């Protein structure tokens, strides 16, 4: 920013030039040494001039300073017109720096120096006023260069000199003295009337070229014979063309000092001149002259004189004729004010006391504002574009001066010594950078409060410089102004304004570059900018250099310049929320080494996992502006040309902003990037860009192996424990816990794949763009065991779609294989690994919570403005902390198991895998298996599955069944399996390529529609693999053979009845039982000992079946009844069954469960008695089903099978009929015959035949058939009782205690009073038992007839 130092008006600019062959570093070193002198005490200036040149020489012992500045290049020739208006704009002195060695002599250095000076100083220029060349001696060639020769105009500095710095200081003071002297000469010319005329001739007047001067000057001289107090003025000296050389040639030590003369002149000079001028100057005002005088005094460091003359000038300018010069005077006065303040306050570091209410700088500010207003209003009389340009320049400079005042005050925290220092020598202090380096709002605002200057005030001030007039400026000035503005905005923390200006800076530079190419050839010779490359530091960004004033384009491709432009671009775009560097340059140039690329950016790949979350966040920025800057950025990068940058910018835009880009823009960007990358490749350098297209992998999934190939893990223990398998049917589904946390974790089973066998993975890719996304290759990224897969190449994903692809690969060894994700490579891009973790439930949960947290946040604004840019925001807190994904991501993991044998089913006995059975029929399925692998099989196990198992298990697990039903279901599952296999041949080993035949039995079971035969096989014993820890698991493969089963339900049994034989109406039987029960009846010896088993069998099928019921009962012969049941009809099967009685301890057992199910709560609400009854029923039924079994057979065919009776239920009456009573009661009617002993009455057809009015005895024999003694009572019931006469009591006859097998007889005499049918019943009750519980009963029927 040194070009816009506040006190630039007081600076004597000195240009430091390299002369001759001097290495850049050496030059920089010496130049830096020279530049350390930013001020020279007035007292050090040699004042030896006597003539008019002594006018500006300092007073002896004066305490002021000369301020030096070292611009990097001279003012452009176009600014010549300013030479009188603003002398401080021009380089007043030139220092050449030469390195002398044995090969480069002083003479040649001087020659070269003179030539260079001629080159850079324009024709007819007043400046530079003085020049000197410093020849530094090389260290190695010390003493050999003939430095002893003193040539005028060149000063040699031997390398042996100790305190070079001091010497240089002296030399500089000398140079300054010359400059001051020359200022005096110039002023001398001006103060002549003709000079004054020239001075007032135009807005920005110049001294005419020296060739025109002499005459007029001499005539002017004639007009003022008494004017000069320096009579020895050699006016012709000015006229010589070689004036500069001559001037400098006289420079050197040894000039005598006459200080008293100068002092006199300075004190007396002004009134004298004023008087004279006012007397003579009738032609034009002397305002300008006084102003020039003030300027020169200011340069000479004599501020009192300067302010004096400025005041004079102001008075003359008050009339308003000359606003521009007026404004310039105001500027000068402001500078003087600051200089005075500086010299006043320099000693004390404390800030000047602000005793007044107004800020101390307010006056200066006012003055400058006035100046700016004057400049702004000033009209340009001529249409000369030159004047426009210069006016605009002065205007902008004035604005920058005003800004500088505020900015320096602000950045140095207030009006004080530091502020003055930074205003005078901005380069000398790094304080500004330090205070504003922390660009947080708080810090900046703190500075504002401390300094009393608000940032907006500075911004408003500096924004005055921005306007259309910038176009008037020359390229270099425009660049400088814009860059200074940007730098100030940046320091103020006004990032957006900075970005605005930076865009202009960039376009300025680019314009120069583009135009410069055209003019390149013309300007090649004047490429002097190489030595004076000024690196303007602007917050660390190096602004690319465009040579001096004109267009200087480097011939060589130094990348720094281009990179700096791009840096600027990136900085400007970032403010608008566009990250041009979102797509990085790949580190590896070798596109094929995916390994390195993949590992390196593993971290960023993980970051990408969270991208989907971020998508939910709101976007930042102004889309129209963003698209605009991107277009511009691409244009800049294309013009540089930097194809890599073009590609990066367009791809970054696509990546970060595709949601706001129009589709045409997306196409365009994609094509641009493609073109740029292709161009780069054509040139041979292939620094690939990183993968850019977001996160392309949506999912990765292992396709399940074919069922017959899938290995199944089994513990080794199942080889030893064989019996446990039987209960697996029932135990598998009985989980006693309602919620079992292990169940879910166990369900996520490991993926098992087999070594050496191919597997398939499906990768789903996504293209969020509107164009066809080309992907060069995709390969899997795995860790763990070696995995061989072929990458998929040259993919084209259609726009806006999900696109699945399949990759086939093979694991080479056994172990664990982890699929981390994919390595994706776009066209011309570097491969990039994308991780794809498998999310568990916890992760999903966390993810959902994160997402909802972000969503919750989206409506609110915790951070706004630039803080809400995505990359800023990510580092900050949300209002609630996001749950962090701490766990390392889990990836898709596979266990590669050793090679496994493979079986196949070669042949089966079934056609189409279907079997048709009648209910209960048994059939055999034969399967021929072949081992088609090279490994032997030494483990073979069959398991079965059918469609009845599932519903039954479900019913069981629901637990709604009663105990009895549960038993039935379980019995069905365990003992009546639809499929079974008896390994009769003990097949265990199948050698490679061997075939074996298995026979599976299949039983028809109603409800079974299909079933499966699972053949699990494996090679368990592997001798050659000696593993030290014996594996706990082994792997089997399973071959499944599905069977479609059709079971015809043809015979239905229902209505089971058990009747006491006593009640059987034998007449009925013949008609009802259409079977061969008749011939079995005779074997029933005692009807009370037997009961009749009857059941209805219905044929619901279309064919007749023969049904056979068999009885196998201990103590009786086996018997069978059979009957043919025609289609659609029903037969009643009857079979006598001998009554039996089960022991008490047997029937008191609870109903067993076949499984080991736990019963947490007994659901039955039955009373004890009811439960007792239920158990009794259960056990008697079980016994009955053991005794009676049923089979069926096709009437015309040989298919046969079992008929299940298990559906039948036993009821309490049936139980009574089946069970022998505890007490046997036998009723006999005995009649007294006159002749002999009493005999039994006639008994036929199940009844006694008696005559009325005959005396009979009823003999009741009670026998205790139980195992314990019983005390009993007997009740007799006659029916109808009115027609019977009897003796004694009938009820509650005490029988006494009967021991087991003891019999007691009671006789009751009786007489029937009429004919008819009577019944006599006897009931025995156990004493003390309940009223209605009888232990035994009997009944007889009597038919009373007249003479029967």
């Amino acid at each position, binding site marked *: 920013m040194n070009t816009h130092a506040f006190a630039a008006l007081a600076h004597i600019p000195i240009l430091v030039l390299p002369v001759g062959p001097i290495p850049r570093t050496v030059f920089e070193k010496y130049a830096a040494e020279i530049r350390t002198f930013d001020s020279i005490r007035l007292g050090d200036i040699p004042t030896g001039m006597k003539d008019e040149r002594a006018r500006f020489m300092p007073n002896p012992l004066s305490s002021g300073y000369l301020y030096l500045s070292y611009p990097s290049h001279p003012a452009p020739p176009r600014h010549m017109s300013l030479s009188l208006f603003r002398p401080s704009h021009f380089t007043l002195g030139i220092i050449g720096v030469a390195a002398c060695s044995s090969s480069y002599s002083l003479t040649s250095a001087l020659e070269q120096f003179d030539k260079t000076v001629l080159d850079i100083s324009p024709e007819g220029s007043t400046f530079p006023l003085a020049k000197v060349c410093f020849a530094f001696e090389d260290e190695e060639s010390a003493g050999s260069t003939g430095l002893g020769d003193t040539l005028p105009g060149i000063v040699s500095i031997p390398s042996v000199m100790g305190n070079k710095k001091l010497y240089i200081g002296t030399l500089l003071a000398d140079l300054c003295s010359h400059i001051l002297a020359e200022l005096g000469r110039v002023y001398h010319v001006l103060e002549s009337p003709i000079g004054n005329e020239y001075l007032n001739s135009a807005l920005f007047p110049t001294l005419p070229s020296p060739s025109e001067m002499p005459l007029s000057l001499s005539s002017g001289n004639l007009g003022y014979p008494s004017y000069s107090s320096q009579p020895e003025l050699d006016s012709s000296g000015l006229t010589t063309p070689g004036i500069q050389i001559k001037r400098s040639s006289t420079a050197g030590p040894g000039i005598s000092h006459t200080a008293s003369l100068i002092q006199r002149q300075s004190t007396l000079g002004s009134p004298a001149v004023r008087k004279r001028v006012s007397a003579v100057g009738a032609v034009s005002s002397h305002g300008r002259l006084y102003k020039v005088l003030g300027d020169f005094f200011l340069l000479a460091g004599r501020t009192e004189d300067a302010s004096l003359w400025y005041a004079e000038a102001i008075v003359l300018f008050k009339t308003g004729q000359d606003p521009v010069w007026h404004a310039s005077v105001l500027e000068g006065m402001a500078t003087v004010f600051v200089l005075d303040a500086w010299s006043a306050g320099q000693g004390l570091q404390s800030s000047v006391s602000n005793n007044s209410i107004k800020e101390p700088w307010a006056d200066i500010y006012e003055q400058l504002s006035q100046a700016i207003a004057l400049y702004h209003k000033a009209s340009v009389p001529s249409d000369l574009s030159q004047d426009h340009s210069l*006016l605009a320049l002065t205007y902008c400079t004035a604005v920058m001066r005003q800004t500088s005042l505020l900015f320096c005050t602000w950045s140095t925290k207030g009006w004080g010594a530091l502020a003055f220092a930074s205003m005078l020598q901005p380069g000398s202090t790094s304080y500004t950078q330090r205070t504003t380096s922390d660009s947080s709002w708080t810090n900046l605002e703190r500075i504002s409060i401390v300094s009393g200057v608000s940032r907006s005030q500075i911004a408003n001030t500096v924004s005055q410089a921005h306007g259309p007039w910038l176009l008037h400026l020359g390229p270099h000035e425009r660049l400088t102004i814009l860059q200074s503005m940007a730098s100030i905005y940046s320091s103020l923390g006004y990032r957006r304004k900075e970005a605005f200006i930076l865009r202009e800076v960039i376009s*300025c530079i680019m314009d120069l570059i583009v135009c410069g190419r055209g003019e390149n050839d013309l300007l090649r010779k004047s490429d002097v900018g190489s030595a004076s490359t000024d690196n303007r530091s602007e917050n660390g960004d190096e602004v690319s250099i465009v040579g001096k004033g004109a267009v200087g384009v480097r011939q060589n491709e130094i990348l720094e310049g281009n990179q700096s432009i791009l840096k600027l671009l990136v900085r400007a775009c970032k403010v608008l929320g566009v990250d041009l560097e979102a797509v990085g340059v790949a580190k590896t140039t070798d596109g094929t080494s995916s390994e390195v690329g993949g590992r390196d950016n593993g971290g960023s790949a993980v970051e990408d996992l969270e991208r989907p979350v971020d998508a939910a966040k709101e976007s930042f920025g*102004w889309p129209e502006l963003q698209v605009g800057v991107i277009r511009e950025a691409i244009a800049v990068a294309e013009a540089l040309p930097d194809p890599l940058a073009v590609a990066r910018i367009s791809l970054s835009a696509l990546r970060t902003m595709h949601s706001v880009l129009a589709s045409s823009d997306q196409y365009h960007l994609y094509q641009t990037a493609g073109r740029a990358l292709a161009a780069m490749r054509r040139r041979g350098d292939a620094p690939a860009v990183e993968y850019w297209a977001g996160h392309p992998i949506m999912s990765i999934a292992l396709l399940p192996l074919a069922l017959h190939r899938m290995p199944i893990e089994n513990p080794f223990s199942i080889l030893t424990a064989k019996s446990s398998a039987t209960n697996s049917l029932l135990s598998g589904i009985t989980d006693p816990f309602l919620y079992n946390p292990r169940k879910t974790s166990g369900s996520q089973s490991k993926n098992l794949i087999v070594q050496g066998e191919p597997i398939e993975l499906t990768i789903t890719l996504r293209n969020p763009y509107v164009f066809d996304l080309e992907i060069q290759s995709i390969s899997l990224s795995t860790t763990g065991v070696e995995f061989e897969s072929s990458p998929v190449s040259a993919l084209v994903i259609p726009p806006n779609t999900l696109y699945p692809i399949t990759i086939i690969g093979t694991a080479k060894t056994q172990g664990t294989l982890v699929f981390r994700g994919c390595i994706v490579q776009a066209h011309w891009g570097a491969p990039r690994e994308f991780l794809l973790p498998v999310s568990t439930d916890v992760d999903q949960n966390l993810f959902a919570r994160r997402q909802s947290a972000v969503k919750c946040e989206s409506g609110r604004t915790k951070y706004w403005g630039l803080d809400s840019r995505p990359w800023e925001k990510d580092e900050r807190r949300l209002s609630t902390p996001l749950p962090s994904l701490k766990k390392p991501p889990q990836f898709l993991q596979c266990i590669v198991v050793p090679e496994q044998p493979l079986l196949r089913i070669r042949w089966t006995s079934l056609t189409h895998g279907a079997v048709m059975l009648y209910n209960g029929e048994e059939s055999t399925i034969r399967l021929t298996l072949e081992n088609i692998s090279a490994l032997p099989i030494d483990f073979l196990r069959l398991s079965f599955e059918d469609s009845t198992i599932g519903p039954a298990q479900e019913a069981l697990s629901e637990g709604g069944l009663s105990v009895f039903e549960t038993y039935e279901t379980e019995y069905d599952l365990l003992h009546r399996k639809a499929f079974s296999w008896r390994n009769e041949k003990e097949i265990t080993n199948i050698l490679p390529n061997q075939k074996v035949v298995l026979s599976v039995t299949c039983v028809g079971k109603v409800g079974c529609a299909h079933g499966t035969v699972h053949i699990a096989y494996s090679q368990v014993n592997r001798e050659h693999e000696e593993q030290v820890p014996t594996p706990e698991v082994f792997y089997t493969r399973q071959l499944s053979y599905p069977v479609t089963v059709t079971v015809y339900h043809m015979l239905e049994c229902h209505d089971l009845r058990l009747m006491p034989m006593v009640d059987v109406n034998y007449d009925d039987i013949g008609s009802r039982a259409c079977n061969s029960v008749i011939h079995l009846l005779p074997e029933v010896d005692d009807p009370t000992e037997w009961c009749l088993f009857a059941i209805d069998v219905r044929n619901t099928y279309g064919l007749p079946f023969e049904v056979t019921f068999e009885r196998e009962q201990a103590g009786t012969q086996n018997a069978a009844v059979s009957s043919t049941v025609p289609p659609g009809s029903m037969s009643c099967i009857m079979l006598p069954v001998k009554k039996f009685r089960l022991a008490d301890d047997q029937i008191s057992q609870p109903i067993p469960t076949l499984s080991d199910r736990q019963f947490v709560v007994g659901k039955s609400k039955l009373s004890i008695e009811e439960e007792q009854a239920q158990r009794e029923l259960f056990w008697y039924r079980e016994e009955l089903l053991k005794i009676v079994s049923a089979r069926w057979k096709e009437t015309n065919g040989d298919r046969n099978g079992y008929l299940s009776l298990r559906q039948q239920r036993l009821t309490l009456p049936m139980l009574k009929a089946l069970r022998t009573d505890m007490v046997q009661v036998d009723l006999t009617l005995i009649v007294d015959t006159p002749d002999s002993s009493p005999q039994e009455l006639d008994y036929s057809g199940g009844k006694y035949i008696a005559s009325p009015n005959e005396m009979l005895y009823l003999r009741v024999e009670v026998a205790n058939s139980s195992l314990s003694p019983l005390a009993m009572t007997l009740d007799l019931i006659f029916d109808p009782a009115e027609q019977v006469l009897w003796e004694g009591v009938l009820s509650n006859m005490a029988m006494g205690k009967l021991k087991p097998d003891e019999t007691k007889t009671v006789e009751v005499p009786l007489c029937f009073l009429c004919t008819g049918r009577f019944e006599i019943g006897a009931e025995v009750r156990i004493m003390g038992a309940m009223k209605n519980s009888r232990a035994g009963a009997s009944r007889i029927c009597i038919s009373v007839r007249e003479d029967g």
Partner: protein
Amino acid sequence: MSHHLFLLSPSDTPIYSLTHYSTKLPQPTSSSLSSNLPTWSTSAFAGTLTALSGASSATQSHHVQGGSVRMGGGQDRHVIQMIANASLDVIEDAMRKESAMYLKSVDKFNEWTVSAFITPGNMKFILLHETKNDDGIRSFFHDVWELYLKTMLNPFHTAHSPIRSVVFDTRVRASAKKYL
């Protein structure tokens, strides 16, 4: 004379923008500095600078002599947006320090004066205008605020989604016509 209104969400995204051409005549504020501008370069990049520095509108105002109203397209929309965006710096600065909702002439850039209105929800209404019209702008902002609040009452409208309501647009235009 034109006015440019932008409603900016806290993330600097415009959710509504309006360009209003007033029938009032612009006062001639030409400086000789901005007159007689050279066409200094023909490269594409020069155009950017010309536009951003405000030169294009300045030259145009020269060509169209005073009386007629500048109609659309004359001013580079992109530049207007850039200026509005850049003025956010000052606005944010001001809103941190002051609690006033209406920031009168908070920023000046090129020929534009920027006035802003900040709602409690951190929505920023930015108006670029060329002339002083303090009362009118204040009333206009209050109108827009009310309309904006009515729009925000819609539960389906979030702070970041653009306002596409026709009613809103018509009413804002009516208010602009009334006050500006």
